[in-house]
């Protein structure tokens, strides 16, 4: 499972970096989205990977990491997803504004600063 997750994070991150370096705004925003997926998975994996271990304490089971998975990275990921989603949406708005004002989707607008 570790290998699969590491591969997924690596492929998503690599594709994200590649796309962010492309000259079209659409590619940049797709790249940022992929990067944020890989970062979120990375945070999640930092709590160590377990199968069939709940993050919530149940009665009668001693509350330590032998019986539970760490709930902290999961809550961090939730916050990071929300924030990343909001900022990406905001970037999308700016992207559309740029497209409308410059008539092209090149990141530099394709014309000189007036």
């Amino acid at each position, binding site marked *: 499972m570790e290998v699969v997750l590491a591969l997924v994070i690596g492929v998503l991150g690599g594709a994200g970096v590649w796309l962010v370096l492309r000259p079209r705004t659409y590619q940049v925003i797709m790249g940022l989205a992929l*990067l944020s997926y890989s970062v979120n998975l990375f945070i999640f994996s930092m709590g160590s990977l377990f199968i069939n271990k709940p993050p919530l304490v149940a009665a009668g089971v001693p509350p330590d990491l032998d019986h539970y998975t760490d709930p902290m990275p999961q809550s961090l990921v939730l916050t990071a997803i929300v924030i990343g989603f909001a900022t990406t949406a905001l970037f999308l708005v700016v992207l559309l504004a740029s497209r409308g004002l410059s008539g092209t989707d090149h990141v530099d607008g394709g014309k000189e600063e007036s």
Partner: protein
Amino acid sequence: MNPALPHLIIVPIVLPLLVAAVFLLISDGRRQFKSLVNVGAALANLVVSIEILRRVDAGGAPGAIKVYLAANWEPHFGIVLVADRLTALMLVLTGIVGLSAAVYSTAAWGRAGVFFHPLFQIQLLGLNGAFLTGDLFNLFVFFEVMLAASYGLQLHGSGWPRVRAGLHYIAVNLLASALFLIGLAMLYGIMGTLSMADIAVKLPLVADTDRGLLHAGAAILAVAFLTKAAVWPLNFWLVPAYMTASAPVAAVFALMTKVGVYVLLRLSTLFFSPAAGPSAQFGSRVFLYAGLVTIGFGVLGLMSSLRLGRIAGFSIIVSSGTLLAAMGVGEPSVTSAALYYVLSATLGASALFLLVELVERAATDGDARPRSVEIEPDEDTNLDDAEGALVGRAVPVSLALLGLAFMACVVVVSGLPPLSGFVAKLSLMAALFNPDGVEIASAPASAAWWLSGLLLLSGLISTVSLSRAGIQQFWSPADSPPRGLKLVECAPVLGLIVASAWLTLRAEPVLRYTRAAAEALHEPKAYIDTVLATNPMPGQARRREAEEAAP
């Protein structure tokens, strides 16, 4: 915690949040009212910050750190707000700059778009929160709050140059946020905690096999902050974004690079103090050299700029580089001088950003392109349109005022006597060459010479390039008489300059304060102990628990 007003520390976060929420309820037509509320809230923010500073400073050595447990959890687990001398100082600085920008925006910019006022308050909230927070993830949240507001504010007023610069600004900051999260997750994976004080305690205990990973995580985290602090080569976004932003927004943005430097200073002194064993002083050499290179880059940029806005942007880069290099030396006396420099440089840069717009508007009447470099007057320009001689005619009051304010800004930014920029640079150099005979062990001996040389060079180049721009703006024949200036636009600029003059007059107590702050930073034991020893307030639930436990 002081029994009177125990919740004072959280006010700089709650107040802007509430005011921003109230703004959404006020109808858009009542702009005048909104502006007044905005100024009132900024004023209240400043007053609260000063009160926090007064309390933090009054408490003597152990009482100098105030801790607030936001949800009354134990400090290892819950959200902690910590106010020590450095935090209080930055809060007051935010208060001063925020108030100036708020007053300035009542003239015109507050009416240029719909959501200026709520965004402005959210920006203050993010800044205050980033200074106050005591755990890493909360720091991330406040950073994002601050940045989200700044994206909106940067675009305020719209127009193609702003959108173009904003696109780059947002993309770079989103990438930096991704790095922030990666570094934070790595630290959590190794340390198992996000509380800064707790990490500092556990850091010396990290196994040697994990230490490389720990350093990698810390370095990735640092790259995110270095991007925000505009360190070369991570600073190409800064000048276009700051130059195109509207004046009050740019004045507040002058603070944002300081947040990056603040976090680096806080975390590096806390985590990699001499108590950290093999990790002690990790990265300080990098800060030193990166800072020196950044000053060099800023100086080159200053020389190549003609427009005032660009010059102001590059002066921000120079001050960031200076701070970072001073921080990299890692000596309390140098850090103390650097903290004084933060105050002076931020006030100067904010005043300059506010002034740039006034000057460019007065001199070119809306057309913000620089004049021709040729300042040799033509034969016929000694006469005005009515064939009257220009010599001996009174300069309009507004232009004279602008000219004097501009001169004062030049003096502060480039570090000439008599204003605070000079005191800041002088004390930095004095600390570097340690007249007390204390050996600076943590940095190579040549560092002091390099930093002092670059400080002097950057002062010279700022003077040259600002004077050049000033000559073009003020001494070239204007095509039309300058429009009248509004009092609310001049007052904040003058206020910032007066604050700088006050810093000069009261240099001794201020330097004593920054000295105490710097010493506390370099001896983080008091900070760690105070934070971790704070007990949750006895509330109803806890009393019940205690009662149940008693029988």
